[in-house]
């Protein structure tokens, strides 16, 4: 590496890290955020407020209700005994069990038993989970109460969850949020740093200085690759030591994956910066790219569900590949063909964006 470039990189790093708030933003905030989200978010629906309308003779419904409350998913709703629909509408309960007139217990004896369940479905995921939980609980209660020694079905399908047997949300969520945080500190940083020099007019000075174009480009991008890569061990440590996300793959491989991603993200930021005139535009452009990247990454909802016509957006999303890599390497130990394929895809993306941003850089510099 030549001395101009080293000086350039040093200047860029000093400039960024000089501001104390920036140091906090780059090194403390990611750790805090990762911890916050890791603790807060659970894909398991809990604390569901359940109400049931039943009289004292309706023992089965009472048992269903008690069993639900004693489990870990439901809590009693306030103000039971009102109109069930009103309970949900007034947001006093998330679900209400309504037995048929005359009681559920008696209707079971008659053989035409029906139980109605009202669920607040403004959150679709929550509603589906509530129905699933209650079906199970009702089945168990009926077996216990009526001594229905249900004949075992002739075909039994047992299930086992691989890689995360306790289905802990943090184990799958933390690698995901880690990726989201990293893209903010890389793509957005690189983008705005270049646009800032443009806006302030110092870029013209750079061009007239005796440095080559590629030195300018490397000088403006390499520091952010360094920053991104120094961020990575920090957040990885939070994932492994605080959230006990298993690290089954090899460390060098995960660093290579992170490096490929950081390069892509920084190059993408550089490319975006060539289209922006001022920092206001840069911030909006950052949002324009980052938001879809997060949504299409597979963190919020499964990629398989996206209609075929637009699923290709996911495959163009570096965040999707990186998130897949992190999960695969950390949880599954890194299956060779998968890891190689996706690191190659990231590397290819990095090369393409670097070439494209070089081109754009040159034409905008003329």
């Amino acid at each position, binding site marked *: 590496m030549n001395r101009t470039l080293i000086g350039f990189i040093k200047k860029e790093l000093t400039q*960024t890290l000089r*501001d104390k*708030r*920036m140091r906090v933003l780059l090194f403390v905030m990611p750790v805090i*955020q990762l911890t916050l*989200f890791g603790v*807060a978010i*659970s894909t398991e629906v809990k*604390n569901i*407020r359940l109400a049931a309308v039943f009289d004292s003779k309706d023992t089965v419904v009472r048992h269903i209700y008690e069993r639900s409350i004693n489990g870990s998913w439901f809590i009693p709703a306030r103000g039971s005994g009102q109109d069930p*629909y009103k309970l*949900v509408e007034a947001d006093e309960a998330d679900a209400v069990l309504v037995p048929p007139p005359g009681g559920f217990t008696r209707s*079971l004896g008659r053989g035409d038993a*029906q139980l*109605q369940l*009202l*669920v607040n*479905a403004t*959150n*679709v*995921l929550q509603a*589906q*989970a509530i129905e*699933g939980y209650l*079906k199970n609980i*009702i089945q168990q209660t009926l077996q216990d109460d009526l001594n*229905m020694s*249900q*004949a075992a079905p*002739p*075909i039994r*399908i047992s*299930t*086992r*969850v691989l*890689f995360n047997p306790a289905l802990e949300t943090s184990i799958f969520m933390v690698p995901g*949020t880690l990726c989201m945080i990293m893209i*903010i500190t890389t793509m*957005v940083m690189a983008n*705005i*740093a270049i646009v*800032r020099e443009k806006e302030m007019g110092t870029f013209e000075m750079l061009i007239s200085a005796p440095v080559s174009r590629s030195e300018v480009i490397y000088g403006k991008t390499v520091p952010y690759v360094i920053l991104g890569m120094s961020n990575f061990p920090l957040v990885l440590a939070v994932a492994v030591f605080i959230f006990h996300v298993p690290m089954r793959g090899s460390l060098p491989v995960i660093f290579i994956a992170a490096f490929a991603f950081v390069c892509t993200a920084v190059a993408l930021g550089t490319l975006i910066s060539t289209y*922006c005139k001022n920092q*206001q535009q840069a911030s*909006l452009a*950052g*949002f324009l790219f980052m*938001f*879809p990247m*997060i*949504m299409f990454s597979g963190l*919020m*909802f*499964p990629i398989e*569900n*996206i*209609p075929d016509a*637009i699923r290709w957006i996911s495959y163009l999303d570096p965040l999707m590949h990186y998130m*897949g890599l992190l999960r695969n390497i950390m949880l599954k130990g890194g299956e060779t063909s*998968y890891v190689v394929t996706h690191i190659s895809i990231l590397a290819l993306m990095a090369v393409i964006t670097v070439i494209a941003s070089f081109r754009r850089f040159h034409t905008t510099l003329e």
Partner: protein
Amino acid sequence: MNPFVWQRAAAISRKEVFHIIRDPFTLAAALVLPVFMVLIFGVAIEFNVKKVALVVSDADQTQSSRRLLDTFGSSGYFLLQHAGSPNDAIEDVTAERARAALIIPPRFEKDLYAGRGAQAQILVDGSDNSTVGPVLGYVGSIQTIASRRIGNFNSPNTYELRTRFLFNPELNSRWFVIPGITVVIMAILSILLTALTVAREWENGSMELLLSTPVQPLEIIVGKVAPYGALGLIAVTFVYIIARTVFGVPFVGNLAVFGLGCLLFLVTYLALGLLISVVTRKQVVAMQFAMMLGMLPTQLLSGFIFPVESMPAFFQYFTMLLPARWFMRIARDTFLKGSSLLDLGGAFLALLIFCGMMIFVATRRFKRDLEP
């Protein structure tokens, strides 16, 4: 302190309007971006998990085992692919070629005919929680169907659970996602629109000019928020039209209530953006702050996808500090439930408090001195 003069605030607004008009990129971003994103994500986001890649290792290779596979295939939830040994199947899950593996042991048919009960096993990929839950749910119903179709077994159906999904009877993902994503997009966009405005003036030196005039901090804040607030309201109107016409999301509530919520919410986040700008005075720092404070918490902690009620107790209180959580409730409830202003009193009160607080703090922190 001098009194608040509307003309001065209006002058600041006028200047800001010129600024927006001169920069068509910002104007387009504020108006087109929300519409564009709602369109894309309205189409893309679907929570009803289908087409789960299921790899099958069928060591039995009999009519019964094939009929079991048929049952899986015809359920519509799974896309079957075949592997040799169980280890190959697990390998496929490890290499992300499949989300779940179905292992049918030899003697499956023999056990079935002998009345011993035929066993099969499903191994689900736990590294992707969003598919695990639904897959586990499907397996139960497939077991019942397969037992009936292959084993001629009728489970004693002793009762019927009739679930009524209120406010979204068909569990349409669009109805759930679109009001939510509107909230998230409006939050981030509003912060970004104002987060740089004051910092930019400091960097350009035009702030010193502004400070030498008799204009008051509150006038600057109001003057800067007003045009962006108007822009945001126009964008929300577009999004609302798209939601109603393109995606057929019902709106059973009162438009005025929703509009009031939008206004309060926009002003709160615009003021938060200004506060960031006032405090940081540097665009680079302001932008990082805006991204960190705006992007991730509104997506992850507002109840957009992950319900607030499922969070640990501490976070149920902590998220109360997030205006997006309150507006999420207002948006969803006015769209789907038709809640009145009274029903949403708490949420509106919270938004009102945040809104006032943001403007107050931004005004107070607006230092009139030139020292950084």
